[in-house]
C-alpha cells in the first residue's frame, strides 16, 4: 500500500498527482487505522529496536538521568535552600521535567545516521516508525518524570495531596511532551543547528500543554479553591494531544522522505 505523499513529492519520477485536499485529509485516519492493523508487527519490531538501541547506548540514558539529578540539586540550591512553597514547588518541578524531556527526546532522530535512516525508510512505513518512537518516548519520559518526582520529593519535600491525580498528570504530561517533542525533533534533526531549533520550535508549541499540566497538578497539590473541578483541564489536555497526534501522523511522511 502506497502512502499518497510518496508519489506526490518525488520529482524525478514526475508522476502528475492532482492535489485534492478534501479527498486527501479525511482519508488519513481510516488509512492510519488500516495501516496500524496490518503492520502491527512492524510496530513491535521497531519498538524492540528502540529498547535495544537504548540498552546498547546505556551512557545516553545514564546521561539524562544524571542531568535530572544535577538539575534538581541546582534548582534546590539556587533557591537558597529556602522553604519551597507548594506553588513554587509546582513551577520548579514542571520546569525540571520540561528540560529533562526536551533533552531526552532530542536524540531520538539525531542519534541515528542518515544511512541507517535510509535503511529504515526502505523497510518500514513512516507512520509505524513515528508511532514506535512516540510510544517509546512516552515510556522514557514517564520513567524520567517519576524519577524527577521521587528525587525532588526527597530534596524539596512532597506537598502532593492527591497522589492518583498527580500520577495521572505525569502520565498525560509524558504523552503530550512525547508527541510534540518527537515530531519537532524529526524536523530539527534535518537542520544543522538542531539543538537551538529544537528549543525555539518546541517551546511555543508545548506551552498550552504545559499550562494545562501545571493547572492540573495544582489540583493535585490542593492549591485550587475547593469547588473547582479539573474535568475541563483533562479534556483540554486530551483534545490538544489528539490534535497534535493526528497532525504528526499526517505530516510525518513529508518530513521523512528525503
Amino acid at each position, binding site marked *: 500500500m502506497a502512502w499518497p505523499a510518496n508519489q*506526490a*513529492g518525488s520529482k524525478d519520477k514526475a508522476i502528475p498527482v492532482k*492535489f485534492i485536499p478534501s479527498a486527501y485529509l479525511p482519508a488519513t485516519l481510516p488509512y492510519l487505522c488500516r495501516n496500524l492493523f496490518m503492520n502491527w508487527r512492524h510496530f513491535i519490531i521497531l519498538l524492540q529496536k528502540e529498547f535495544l538501541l537504548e540498552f546498547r547506548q546505556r551512557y545516553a540514558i545514564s546521561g539524562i538521568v544524571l542531568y535530572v539529578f544535577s538539575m534538581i540539586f541546582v534548582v534546590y540550591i539556587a533557591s537558597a535552600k529556602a522553604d519551597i512553597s507548594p506553588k513554587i514547588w509546582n513551577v520548579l518541578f514542571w520546569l525540571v521535567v520540561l528540560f529533562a524531556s526536551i533533552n531526552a527526546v532530542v536524540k531520538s532522530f539525531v542519534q541515528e545516521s542518515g544511512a541507517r535512516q535510509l535503511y529504515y525508510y526502505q523497510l518500514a512505513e513512516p507512520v509505524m516508525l513515528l508511532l514506535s518512537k512516540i510510544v517509546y518516548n512516552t515510556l522514557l519520559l514517564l520513567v524520567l518524570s517519576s524519577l524527577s518526582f521521587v528525587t525532588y520529593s526527597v530534596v524539596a519535600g512532597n506537598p502532593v495531596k492527591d497522589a492518583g491525580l498527580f500520577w495521572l498528570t505525569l502520565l498525560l504530561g509524558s504523552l503530550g511532551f512525547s508527541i510534540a517533542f518527537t515530531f519537532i525533533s524529526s524536523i530539527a534533526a534535518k537542520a544543522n543547528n538542531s539543538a537551538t531549533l529544537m528549543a*525555539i520550535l518546541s517551546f*511555543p*508549541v508545548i506551552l498550552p500543554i504545559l499550562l*494545562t499540566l501545571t493547572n492540573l497538578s495544582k489540583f493535585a497539590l490542593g492549591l485550587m479553591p475547593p469547588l473547582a473541578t479539573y474535568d475541563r483541564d483533562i479534556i483540554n489536555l486530551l483534545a490538544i494531544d489528539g*490534535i*497534535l497526534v493526528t497532525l504528526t501522523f499526517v505530516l510525518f511522511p513529508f*518530513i521523512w522522505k528525503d
Partner: protein
Amino acid sequence: MWWKILSVVLVLYALSIGLLIPLKPGVVRVSPETATTGQALTLQVFGYNSYFSKSEPGQIRVWLEYDSSRATAAQTIKVLNDTTLEASFQLPPYLPKGEKSTLLTAIVDHPTDGVSLLPNALKLIQDTAFLKSGASVSSMVSDSAWTLQPIDNLHVIKDFSFPYRNVIYESIRNTYYHVPMWFVLMFLFIASVWYSIRYLGKPDPDFDRKAAGYAETGLLFGFLGLFTGMVWANYAWGKPWSNDIKQLMTAVALLIYLAYFILRRSFDEPEKGARLAAVYNIFAFASLIPLLYIVPRMFASLHPGATGNPAFGSEDLDNTMRAVFYPSILGWTLLGFWIASLRIRYQRLHDRSHGLD
C-alpha cells in the same frame, strides 16, 4: 484592482469617521463619593461632552439609583457650567434593605444630552445614630422614601455618536484599529497554511513564496495588534504590559511564527527548507488554535468578555460602532492581502534574478 481601491477607501473611512465622531455625553465622577443616610447632600456632578447649560435648569433631573424600582431624586439643581452641576438631595434615613452601606448609581437626564449614568458613583453608609434610638433596622425600614420619586420619562437622543464608557473614554475608538488587526492576522495565517498544504501536495516554489509572504504580513499585523493593544492598555489598565493571558498567548503565537522564519533559513537546500517549513507551519497553526481559543478561557483576563468568550460580546458594540467596525475589518483585511501580494511579487522577482526559481 477594485479591491485595492476599496481597501484604501474603507481604511480612510475607518480612520476619519472613527476619529472624528464625538462620544455620547456621560458622567465622569461625582463629588463627594461617600455620604451617610438622612444627610442633606450637595452633590457635584461632572459631565463629559455634556451641555448642561443648553437645557432649562428645570428640565435637568438627577437621581441616585438603588435598583430598578428604588431611587431618590435631587430636589434642586444648579448648573455651574456645561460640564458641572450641583444637585441637592435630602437622603432617606434608612437604606431599603437595612444594609450597612451600599453603592448608588448616579443618573442625569435632560433634553439636550439625553440620559447618562455613572454606576457605583456614591457610597451611601447607614447612619448608626438613627439605629440607637430605636429597635432593629428591618422594622424601621420604610420603602416609601425610596419609591416616591421614580425614574421615568427619560430622554433618548438618537444621533450618530459612539457610546460613552467609563475608564476607557475616548480610547473606545481603538476598537476600530486594535481588534481588526487580529482578524487580519487570522485571515493571513489561514492563507499561509492553505499554501503550505498545497506546497506539500505539489512542491511548487510559488506556493512556498505565498505561504511565507502571508505569514510575514500576518506577523506584521500581529505586532501592530500587540502595539495598539499596549497603547490602549497603558491608558485603560495603567501600564502597557500587565501579563494578561491574552497578551502572553499572543506573544507566544508571534514567537511560533518567528521560529518558522528561523526554520526556513536554516537549511542549505531551499527545497528541503521549504518543505519542512511548510510542515511546521501547519503544525504551528494547529497549536495556535488552543493558544488563542482554549487557553484564554481557562484564566481570568482583563479583556472584555473574559469568561468563556475569546473576543467580546455583542453587547460591547452598538450600531454606530458596527457601522465603523465592520468596514474597518474589511478594509484592513484587503490592505493586508495587498501588502502580502506585493511582498510575494518582490520575492518572486528576487528569486528569478538569483536563478532560484
